């Protein structure tokens, strides 16, 4: 009676592009059955989808009943409202324009973001799911520190504190993750980067939307 061969069990499509099982002559190949439970799409999924749709409509209808879409006086090219704001999802960019030369803020950075997003699935680093500090190596700390300082310096030069501050905080968190064992330590490098991007995007958009008054000066929302 021979024990079944140990099967290399990896879910990483790069490490194991094809599912291969080595079978020694003296053993019987055996594949464990999937314990995955399947249910009929109709009604289980369909009903949920219907409910989801209904909930979305309900939510939006309530919003539509309670809050009217803004409508100001008719467009007048001679009378510029101060500040003139773009739609909220571009206010992050407009906030950037406040710190960087237009070419950088209006073109370079957005283009970089889009490119970065597109290439994500093709970059090897994104496919490995190893947490940042799982494989400690000599160059990792200095490299990270250097990058971090470089970023801080770059944005610092332009005085773009809405980016500098979150960057600094996240930077601290990155190194904190090294000693923390529960949550932070599981975060991979791509996740760190994406989180950094999201935080900055949100911060900039929120500032642009709520904290900017005449002449793009800082105002408090309640003023």
């Amino acid at each position, binding site marked *: 009676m021979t024990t079944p061969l140990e099967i290399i069990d990896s879910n990483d499509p790069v490490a194991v592009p094809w599912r291969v099982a080595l079978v020694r002559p003296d053993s019987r190949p055996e594949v464990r059955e999937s314990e995955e439970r399947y*249910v*009929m799409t109709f*009604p*289980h999924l369909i*009903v949920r989808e*219907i409910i989801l749709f209904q909930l979305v409509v309900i939510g939006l209808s309530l919003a539509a009943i309670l809050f009217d879409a803004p409508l100001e006086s008719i467009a007048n090219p001679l009378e510029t409202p101060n500040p003139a704001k773009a739609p909220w999802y571009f206010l992050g960019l407009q906030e950037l324009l406040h710190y960087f030369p237009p070419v950088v803020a209006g073109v370079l950075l957005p283009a970089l973001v889009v490119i970065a997003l597109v290439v994500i699935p093709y970059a090897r680093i994104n496919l490995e799911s190893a947490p940042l500090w799982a494989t400690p190596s000599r160059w990792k700390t200095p490299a990270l520190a250097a990058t971090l300082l470089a970023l801080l310096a770059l944005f610092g030069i332009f005085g773009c504190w809405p980016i500098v501050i979150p960057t600094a905080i996240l930077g601290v968190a990155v190194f904190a993750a090294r000693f923390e064992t529960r949550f932070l330590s599981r975060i991979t490098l791509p996740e760190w980067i994406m989180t950094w991007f999201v935080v900055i995007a949100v911060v900039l958009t929120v500032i642009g939307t709520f904290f900017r008054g005449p002449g793009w000066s800082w105002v408090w929302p309640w003023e």
Partner: protein
Amino acid sequence: MLELDETLDDSGETRRDFFTRIGVGACAVAAVGSGVLTLDYLEPKVLFEPSTTFVAGSPRDFTDGVVRFNREKKAYVIGGPTGVYALSAVCTHLGCITRFKSDERVIACPCHGSRFDLDGGVVHGPAPRPLPWLDVAEDANGNLVVDTGIVIPRGKVFRP
């Protein structure tokens, strides 16, 4: 009808069915209702259209045989032996604007040669129907008011 298997509901058959019916019923009502509302939404509540009426002048101007053409409202106002009446100037054949030929005392269509007499009747030509008569009334100042929107039976002459 929508019915779910046991994995979704531990309760009895009937209540499950009951809830399902409510749901489907509500959805059905909502669907029909939205249809009705859409129609209501699409129905124009105000119109931006020029009025169909025009003032033709005093009845005294329309002695027997007088024919006046209102280009803008596409109508003839005609003085008959017994009174005044108005004709649409739109040919009943293919909708060209007819012209009044004073020398022959006929209304002729330039497109396909239909010809009408001054009562609107078809003299000859492809026109299938006589020219419709239009409503004529008198306003407060005693002027004739023609409403091209209202068609009246032939021969209903306005007597001031």
